[in-house]
């Protein structure tokens, strides 16, 4: 892709985000989108220090490189093989650090991006906030609900920006889906069936020098809630978003069902999140069957939206029985003909296989866009509106789900959470 082509596709993408986020109710439902897609102010790029250069960290670096207002100005990672890979994406003279405090103390960056294992998010975020830096932290926020709350509280105390990565919030297909749902196209949403099913172990091969707990941190409970924080968080943000509210309680079950390889996080979870007025989110995630993949099936009385597939489906109404339609025509024309009538041919309770209609606007680079929004927020000192509440509630929902599974009972939504 040439620079011109890239600029054009970026403009098209941003126009779509702006168009999708305009309309009745959308400024309240997705206030961040228009903010992030707005024109970028002229001025020096925001210098970003990236803490954590593993797979996700390197993806973020590549997205930061695409932005119009950010530049990667420092890298931090104690694990040399990751750092070596990450350096390929930045100028050779980019400062590197093995200790995040040293990077913070060096005062060579304007803001910090954190892409470390989950159990380190809270400490790295607090340290960066305490050092006076705005922070962008990957989702999920933290290993515990208490730490999620503490991160927000600390940001407020320090008067510093805290933004959490949830790229679907910037995806034009999702924004358009929300807009169409809010316009009533699928009727009242009463159930969302969300799943993230994969058929692989989730285990990373250990590079030379790597330790099991450092490389495969997602597989151990002291470091991660596994499927709940690494996958479900994305989708629980989406379900909260489309439900227009928060769960009232959650119940669930989990097991190490297939990958009995020493991990201690669940490799299969199934949960029900209750929302107001009897609405429900049914969530499943597993690691040994990929048939149903990653999707949120947003089901209303008039239709269904599947944003990952980018499809919208209308509820199928029974078509007219041809023989009876002809009978009516005949009668109106004064003809009396025999009516052929036989066995039932229409079964609405079978799964519908109609292709539906495209939601349009496939994803482009929503991760890039959330960084441009972060960059503008750093420049202006004003956070991208609405994002932190979405992220906080999504992380709480995922961690509460883990807790419900662990305790084997339904848990009410906490009453001591922060308000936004």
């Amino acid at each position, binding site marked *: 892709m040439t620079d011109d082509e890239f600029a054009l596709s970026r403009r098209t993408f941003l126009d779509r985000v702006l168009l999708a986020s305009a309309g009745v109710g959308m400024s309240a439902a997705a206030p961040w989108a228009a903010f992030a897609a707005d024109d970028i102010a002229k001025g020096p790029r925001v210098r970003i220090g990236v803490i954590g250069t593993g797979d996700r960290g390197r993806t973020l670096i590549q997205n930061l490189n695409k932005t119009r207002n950010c530049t990667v100005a420092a890298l931090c990672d104690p694990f040399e093989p990751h750092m070596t890979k990450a350096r390929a994406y930045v100028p050779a003279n980019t400062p590197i650090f093995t200790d995040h405090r040293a990077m913070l103390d060096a005062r060579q960056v304007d803001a910090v991006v954190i892409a470390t294992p989950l159990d380190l998010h809270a400490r790295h975020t607090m340290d960066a906030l305490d050092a006076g830096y705005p922070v962008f932290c990957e989702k999920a926020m933290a290993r515990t609900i208490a730490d999620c709350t503490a991160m927000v509280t600390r940001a407020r105390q320090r008067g510093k920006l805290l933004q959490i990565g949830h790229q679907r919030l910037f995806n034009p297909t999702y924004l358009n889906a929300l807009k169409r749902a809010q316009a009533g196209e699928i009727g009242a949403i009463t159930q969302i069936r969300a799943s993230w099913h994969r058929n692989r172990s989730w285990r990373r091969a250990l590079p030379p020098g790597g330790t099991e707990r450092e490389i495969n941190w997602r597989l151990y409970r002291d470091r991660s809630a596994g499927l709940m924080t690494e996958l479900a968080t994305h989708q629980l943000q989406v379900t909260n978003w489309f439900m227009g509210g928060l769960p009232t309680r959650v119940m669930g079950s989990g097991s190490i069902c297939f990958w009995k390889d020493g991990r201690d996080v669940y490799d299969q979870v199934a949960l029900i999140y209750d929302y107001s007025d009897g609405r429900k989110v049914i969530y499943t995630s597993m690691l040994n069957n990929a048939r149903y993949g990653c999707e949120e099936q947003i089901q209303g009385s008039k239709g269904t939206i599947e944003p990952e597939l980018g499809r919208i489906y209308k509820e199928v*109404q*029974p*078509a*007219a*029985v041809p*023989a*009876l339609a002809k*009978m*009516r025509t005949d*009668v*109106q*024309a*004064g*003809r*009396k*003909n*025999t*009516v*052929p*009538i*036989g*066995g*039932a*041919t*229409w*079964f*609405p*309770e*079978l799964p519908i296989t109609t292709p539906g209609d495209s939601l349009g606007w496939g994803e482009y680079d929503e991760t890039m866009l959330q960084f441009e929004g972060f960059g503008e927020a750093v420049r202006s000192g004003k956070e991208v509106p609405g994002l932190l509440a979405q992220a906080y509630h999504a992380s709480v929902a995922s961690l509460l789900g883990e807790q419900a599974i662990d305790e084997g009972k339904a848990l009410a939504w906490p009453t001591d959470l922060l308000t936004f």
Partner: protein
Amino acid sequence: MTAKEASVARFAAMGTRVELHLFGCDDPEVLDAARAAILAVEDALTIHRPSPTTALNAALSGGGSAIVDDPLLFDALLAVDALWQATGGLFDPSFGRWSALGLDRTTRSASAALPLSLDFGGFGKGFALDRAVAALRAAGVTSALLSAGESSIAVIGQHPLGGGWPFAVPHPEDAGAWLVELELADASLSISSTIGAGAAKPGRAAMVRPTDGTIVSAPATAIAVAATGAEAEALSTALLVADASAADRLRAADPDRRFLFPHAAPVGAERALEHTA
């Protein structure tokens, strides 16, 4: 003769599509009343979601008893009881255990001497059409055709152009061939088949013989005409599950309105060539 005014309703209910065609009446409230009558029966008799029937099943499945508060359900139980007797036990929505069910009209209760459960199946469609017919008649409708899944038909009065309503039941496997032609007036029609477009659909309940619990697998189609939809449904089911001698007895009682077609028989004739196995 010019066509009378007509109005029509199409909607999904009881696991299939329902159509109500009225002639000489275009009052939407009349259609709404008929539709409501059908949905009320669905609500009472369905076993696919919580209903008075599932509540009763919960009691009867342990061999217990229960007061049947829902008037539609109790009326359905009484109708089934009469039809169970009329068909010599061949129509049995309890899978062969109806004899163990006691109905007390005074207390409006049902009790089971053996554990049993009810699945009204196609009877529900006929019963629902009967209720819709009653609602339409009460509103003054004199000419109408009602269809539930095209296998349960009811007509009110005569065809809007005069005379009976002419129907032809197609052969389920031989396009263009008819099993039988019928003219109906103020009557109901039920068609049950073990083959054809609908029979092979996943999730379709098999036809079970109440005598021994076996599934009817032989290719056959049963057709029954009766004064009510409930009776027509019971008879078409009974004909399909009956053994040869029982089917003969049922047919002999009303040979012009009860038909059984084993599909080894010749097809393509305007009139059925062979009615029984």
